[in-house]
């Protein structure tokens, strides 16, 4: 800090000072919310915010470090949630006693055979099939594999749904589920990235939106896997549940606070570890290379960097964090409800967090996450209060009451989110805490 800055006391252009001031302001906001809403609600809000922070950091790796578009945040979160269901939900004995596992095994075998057939067709040039014939063969292979797989999975799904409901979970620790959620998201990100990372940014945006919608359609309709719209609930926690505290004689109100504090502590530990790791990665040679690719991929490519490979690496890394965060949210909310996933609440809110916080700056993204999540949560009661007053006013003027206040007030959040994006892009395009560009002296 320069002398003038010390003299002026508070220099908001200095990155360090700016972060300290803004984080202090955020801390005050959290305290006020905590005072108004009570300890139980505040711990709930903070734990969810930490899960979202993991997701936003994941997106920051993709968009902030690498400049890669990812509008499939919701899809990866859903994958993480579905993985947690399969790992940690209680075992469903009905399924394991029925013929379900056998049928599913057959379907899986057919899937693998189909994949092998397609891969073989792609290599058919080795035996002298070329040009149009090869394309025709590949299309035929895809079609045959698809029909063969459908012929196995459709009856299996119908059988499981009619006898056992769904396959249930494995009854293992939820934290293993989070890990598997990350792995599943990584596999999906690898496939998606392999196909679409070479595309221009607007094509990539539409491709990822499509993938996220398709993932949602699958998870929502694969009733045999995730019970679809019937939802899986309650999901276990890796830490003691409020009910366990209550069994030990803690009062109901306190039990929620204690249990959520336990989850909060666990989530915080994970967040701190992840944050330190990716912050180091950002500062190191690896992060420098990624920024070089982001800022000028042609120059970076001519220096011998493997652009496509590196971007794939970033995409997969970010998606792992998104998957883990999504899985953690599912566990914490104790319910997996595929129809509750909306692009607005998930994909776009996370984007707002990253943009408002400051893409490329991990601290900024943390700040943005907490601010936006708090704004998102409290704007519902706030809008309701405003509407109730408006309604009372319009009644007194003689225009009658406003109908359906509850459901309408909820929509205000969507509008507020849109306003925040457009204002941020116009007046603070780099975010509250802009990325610090280090200059070599």
């Amino acid at each position, binding site marked *: 800090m320069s002398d003038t800055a010390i003299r002026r006391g508070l220099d908001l252009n200095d990155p360090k000072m700016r972060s300290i001031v803004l984080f202090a302001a955020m801390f005050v906001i959290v305290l006020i919310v905590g005072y108004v809403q009570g300890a139980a609600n505040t711990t709930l809000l903070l734990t969810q915010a930490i899960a979202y922070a993991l997701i936003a950091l994941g997106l920051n790796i993709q968009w902030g470090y690498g400049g890669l*578009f990812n509008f499939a945040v919701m899809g990866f979160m859903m994958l993480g949630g579905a993985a947690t269901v399969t790992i940690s939900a209680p075992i469903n004995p009905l399924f394991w006693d029925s013929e379900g596992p056998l049928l599913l095994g057959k379907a899986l075998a057919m899937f693998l055979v189909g994949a092998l057939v397609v891969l073989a067709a792609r290599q058919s040039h080795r035996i002298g099939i070329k040009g149009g014939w090869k394309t025709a063969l590949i299309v035929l292979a895809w079609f045959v594999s698809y029909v063969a797989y459908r012929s196995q999975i459709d009856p299996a799904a119908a059988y499981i749904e009619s006898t056992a409901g769904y396959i249930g979970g494995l009854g293992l620790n939820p934290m293993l589920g989070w890990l598997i959620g990350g792995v599943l998201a990584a596999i999906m990100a690898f496939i998606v990235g392999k*196909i*679409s990372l070479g*595309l*221009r*940014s*607007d*094509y990539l*945006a*539409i*491709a990822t*939106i*499509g*993938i996220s*919608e*398709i993932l949602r*359609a*699958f998870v*929502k*309709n694969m009733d045999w896997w995730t019970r679809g719209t019937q939802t899986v609930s309650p999901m276990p926690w890796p830490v003691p549940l409020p009910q366990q505290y209550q069994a030990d004689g803690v009062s109901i109100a306190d039990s929620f606070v204690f249990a959520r504090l336990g989850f909060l502590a666990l989530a915080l530990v994970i967040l701190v570890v992840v944050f330190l790791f990716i912050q180091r990665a950002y500062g190191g040679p690896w992060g420098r290379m990624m920024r070089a690719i982001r800022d000028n991929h042609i120059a970076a490519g001519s220096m011998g960097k493997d652009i496509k490979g590196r971007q794939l690496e970033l995409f997969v890394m970010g998606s792992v964090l998104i998957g883990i965060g999504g899985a953690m949210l599912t566990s914490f909310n104790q319910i997996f409800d595929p129809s509750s996933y909306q*692009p*607005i609440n998930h994909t*776009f809110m996370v*984007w707002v967090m990253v*943009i408002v916080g400051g893409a490329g700056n991990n601290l900024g993204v943390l700040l943005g996450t907490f601010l936006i999540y708090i704004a998102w949560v409290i704007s519902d009661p706030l809008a309701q209060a405003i509407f109730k007053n408006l309604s009372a006013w319009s009644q007194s003027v003689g225009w009658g009451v406003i*109908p*359906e206040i509850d*459901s*309408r007030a909820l*929509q*205000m*959040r*969507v*509008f*507020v*989110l*849109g*306003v*925040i*994006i*457009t204002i941020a*892009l*116009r007046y603070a*395009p780099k975010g509250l805490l802009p990325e610090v560009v280090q200059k070599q002296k």
Partner: protein
Amino acid sequence: MDELIFFINRVLISGTVLGSIYALGAIGITLVFGILRFAHFAHGDMMTMGAFIGFCIASILAGMGIATPIPIAFVVLPLAMVVTAAIALGIDKGFYAPLRRRGVPSVTLLIASIGVTLMMQGLIRLFFGSGTRSLYINETKEIFRIDMSAFGGSRPISITEPQVLMIAVTVVLVLALHFFLTRSRLGKAMRAMSDNAALAQVSGINTALVVRVTWIIAGSLACVAGTMLALDVALMPDLAFNIVLPIFAAAIVGGLGHVYGAIVGGFLIAFAETLAVFNWTSILRPLTTWLPFDLPANLALVPTEYKLTVAFVILVITLLARPTGIFKGISS
């Protein structure tokens, strides 16, 4: 013969209607991309908004006791188009133009369009609630039945009055747009700017006017497409958000920036979707005596829940095999 009639009813007619909607939406996206070089994500919600504006005007007229021979939504369409075009201009002036002046990359404009999407969605739901409404106000769909008994069919080909009107309106609008782009001075200026914006400006074309005309065309076509979609399905706040993907797929498959490509792409995607979820058993039933196996009850290529995947798969194949689309599109 009955099978053929069933096919016409279920695929040909509904595919054409869906294709008209997709084509009109995709033209808007492709025009905005051609002139302003960014993917306008708010187009879907512009469609919904257009439908709701039509709904408001129609309700007011119906409330005044005015009854029309054709569905009232079609009568008020020109007025709704004007209002929507004005709102589209306002959105550009308020949100995109300031960013453009600063010379931001097209990615920022894309994100801004998502912000606009959210604002419009929030406002629509705020004013109209999240329930489903009908654009047929005190009206019933009139169904034309074309008797096919002369050709040996026992069932008629049935098409509803709104469907006939939709197809007719689309044909008229597409022809009008074609003549505007090829014959009028302004249309030629638009094509020139879409080819090379800098060169167009140097040669004395009023680019600000072209941008305004682009928004007027895109906004009014979005209003038509949204109204048609609402007539075809139902009027819901998240009506068009679900078809943003097929519309973008149509524009990209046709080649971004290419108006005729967008039309072809729209119909291509619509027919692919309709054929993919079509139950082929109903067509193949006469062949049962010759087939060695029994036909399953439902022989659709893709279950209806996964209809969305069709547009996406076509999009991915296009991007992999021919990234510029069927007609050679622009690359930004």
